[in-house]
């Protein structure tokens, strides 16, 4: 450690020159990147033109909004959305900017303080920051009335820009460490899904807002977002225009404090990155004893003993711990709940949509062994007879049912609460459970007959060459499931049309029995085949 100490003085003296070095580095990297191919240059120029056009329209829009009652709310909310965008961006484009990749700077004798300053200034160069600058100027221009507001605006614009950039950088730097650990990679797999679900929720919200057409919702949202940096800086300008200088000062101060905190976090992450470059072992180390009884936890005590308990326990653990299984379940649960509930909010909503939930979750039974990947050998080693195969498949179906049945009841009750139709619940449950039985039965058949691999180390969910089979199996199942429930649906329609409404409750016991019968039939049909096909299944799920 003596080298940095002796090099300290000259580095300190050379401090002022570090920032221009990084800015020049960034510009030459940009130039060299463009020089590599004309296509890249064209793409860059085109995107620049588009960005500038949008920015121009945005500034124009803000200027037109000036004086309108909703101007403050729109300016604050737009800034908030931009802040969120900057925060989320590094998760999708982790290596977007080479100058900001700290692992490339590890070997250089750089001190953290000037380094953070230089990196901050360097990251202000680019189309993204330019676009944000336009937004900030437009947003404050829409709300700045009077001298006090103008002065606040002059301070707010650079603050907005710097908070956005620092937020993005701090998250990216923290993310480098996160992504190099196993847990981080697991989370990265899930984060895309969560963001997609978040966007869907925002979409629903926007549609609801569009229908009511009530702008007071905007004001409510803005009053909250107005306290979150970087939007608080724009809200400060609005407050100053209203003459509330104390409020304006407080909001501006909040943005300054946030900027300082972000820079501190960024610097801390940078320093740790530079002295602890190998994140993989750091990430893995603190994973020791959390739950001393993990081997025999609460889950194990609730489940039956023997093979059934062991299989179910492992399946439940995998739903929670395996990123791919978890992602599949989270999306099935979210879609299975959102679609019926969202439909319930429409005028033509129906409690029958609850069947969608049981169908979506039933789909998780498909390709059971692909979820095991090549670890399926451990299962194959303990299956010698059709009876063993029967038990294995049945126990996995139990896990599906243990989650799906209560979930379907919840969704049906929730849908009924919104859309009405409490009296229809028994027949809905009957249909839903029959559909679940049909999906589980099909899942058993598909898992044994058409297993395919789910590669564990990539974002893809199917190994090359097996995509067609995977899609055919899933879509075939989605059509065949309702088709198998045909007799029950026929009975339902007949009871309704012929006016025997008093007998509709019969569908509940009939549906449960029918679903169970389908599953039992599939298990009987496929267990022998599974016991004979173990090496073939293992080969299919080990690809990729």
């Amino acid at each position, binding site marked *: 450690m003596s080298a940095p100490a002796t090099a300290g003085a000259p580095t300190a003296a050379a401090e002022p020159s570090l920032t221009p070095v990084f800015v020049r580095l960034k510009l030459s990297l940009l130039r060299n990147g463009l020089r590599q191919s004309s296509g890249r240059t064209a793409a860059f120029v085109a995107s620049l033109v588009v960005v500038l056009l949008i920015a121009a329209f945005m500034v124009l829009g803000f200027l037109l909004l000036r004086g309108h009652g909703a101007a403050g709310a729109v300016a604050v909310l737009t800034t908030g959305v931009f802040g969120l965008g900057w925060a989320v961006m590094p998760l999708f484009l982790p290596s977007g900017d080479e100058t900001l990749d700290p692992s490339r700077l590890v070997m250089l004798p750089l001190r953290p303080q000037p380094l953070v300053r230089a990196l901050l200034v360097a990251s202000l160069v680019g189309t993204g920051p330019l676009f944000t600058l336009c937004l900030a100027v437009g947003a404050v221009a829409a709300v700045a009335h009077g001298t006090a507001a103008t002065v606040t605006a002059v301070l707010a614009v650079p603050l907005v820009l710097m908070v956005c950039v620092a937020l993005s950088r701090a998250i990216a730097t923290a993310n480098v460490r996160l992504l190099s650990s196993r847990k981080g990679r697991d989370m990265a797999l899930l984060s895309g899904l969560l963001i997609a679900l978040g966007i869907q929720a925002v979409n629903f919200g926007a549609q609801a807002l569009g229908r009511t057409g009530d702008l007071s919702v905007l004001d409510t949202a803005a009053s909250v977002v107005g306290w979150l940096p970087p939007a608080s800086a724009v809200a400060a300008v609005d407050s100053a225009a209203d003459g509330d200088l104390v409020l304006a000062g407080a909001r501006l101060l909040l943005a300054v404090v946030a900027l300082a905190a972000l820079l501190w976090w960024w610097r801390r992450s940078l320093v740790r990155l530079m002295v602890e470059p190998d994140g993989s072992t750091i990430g893995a180390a603190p994973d*020791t004893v959390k739950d001393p009884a993990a*081997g025999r936890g609460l889950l194990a005590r609730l489940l039956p003993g023997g*093979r059934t308990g*062991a299989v179910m326990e*492992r399946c439940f*653990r995998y739903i929670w711990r395996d990123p791919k299984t978890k992602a599949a379940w989270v999306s099935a649960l979210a879609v299975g709940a959102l679609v019926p509930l969202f439909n319930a909010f429409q005028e033509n909503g129906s409690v029958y949509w609850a069947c969608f939930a049981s169908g979506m979750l039933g789909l998780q039974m498909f390709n059971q062994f692909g979820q095991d990947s090549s670890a399926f050998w451990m299962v*194959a080693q303990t299956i*010698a007879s059709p009876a063993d195969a029967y038990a294995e498949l049945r126990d996995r179906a139990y896990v599906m049912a243990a989650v799906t049945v209560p979930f379907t009841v919840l969704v049906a009750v929730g849908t009924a609460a919104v859309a009405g139709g409490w009296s229809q619940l028994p027949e809905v449950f009957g249909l839903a459970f029959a559909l679940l039985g049909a999906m589980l039965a099909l899942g058993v058949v598909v898992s044994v007959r058409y297993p395919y691999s789910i590669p564990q180390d990539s974002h893809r969910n199917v190994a090359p060459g097996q995509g067609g089979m995977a899609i055919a199996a899933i879509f075939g199942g989605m059509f065949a499931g309702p088709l198998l429930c045909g007799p029950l649906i026929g009975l339902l329609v007949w009871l309704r049309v012929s006016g025997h409404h008093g007998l509709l409750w019969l569908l509940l016991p009939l549906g449960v029995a029918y679903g169970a019968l389908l599953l039992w039939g599939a298990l009987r049909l496929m267990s022998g085949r599974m016991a004979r096909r173990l*090496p073939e299944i293992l080969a299919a799920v080990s690809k990729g």
Partner: protein
Amino acid sequence: MPDQAFDGTFEPTGAAPENSGAAPAVQVEGVWKRFGQQIAVNGIDLVLPAGKFIGLVGPNGAGKTTTLSMITGLLRPDSGRIRVAGHDVWRDPESVARVKARIGILPEGLRLFERLSGRELLAYSGRLRGLPGAEVDKRATQLLDVLDLAGSQHKLVVDYSTGMRKKIGLAAALLHNPDVLFLDEPFEGVDPVSAQTIRGVLERYTSSGATVVFSSHVMELVESLCDWVAVMAGGRIRAQGPLAEVKGSAATLQEAFLELVGAHDRAAAGDSLDWLGGARGDRS
């Protein structure tokens, strides 16, 4: 131990040596395996005696993993017959069930259920084999202790190092006290300390009369551990028998092995690189 006597239907052919009397742990008869155009295992015959520490050696791509996978029921042979502990691995379910109950495997290149902790993996694996829960937990605790994994028993296997993975895989393979243990490259990528631990456990296990079959391409290791060796190359068995017999007049197993697989000629081909290590002139 095998409860069924050698039924006499098997006749050692070719390189397979005469059996010494007791029922062999593994008998392989005319087994073929082809992947597309490539023949991975080329009609091999193999007799591995019970109660021995057996090494299956050969260069990369010799067919060791394919052979072990077929013996343990993980890969279906194209033709031929395999018997383990007297039972046919690929015939009827009852015979397969007897084989599976009697063997333990540590495969190479296949995953474990890695999102379980070490202890959970053993608990799962033991219960799947139908052992009583309390017995599984007792054996797991002892195995984790002996294999030096007690400190990491609650860590997920996905976060284990290579040596720890091999050790937890070995524990899972030993949990049901099998007659025959098949280990594919158990020492590959394992640090010396873990290797010593594994070695100690295996030596203790064979001293009880059980059979260990393991594949490796580290000859020194095989020479120091095994009393019986089978040499494989290019999908064929080149030699099999007691270590001393296979070694013959060669000083080490390494030399005997190079001779058997015909690699001595290739080493001599290094002569054509006569410029390598020669005088280095001015290259400016």
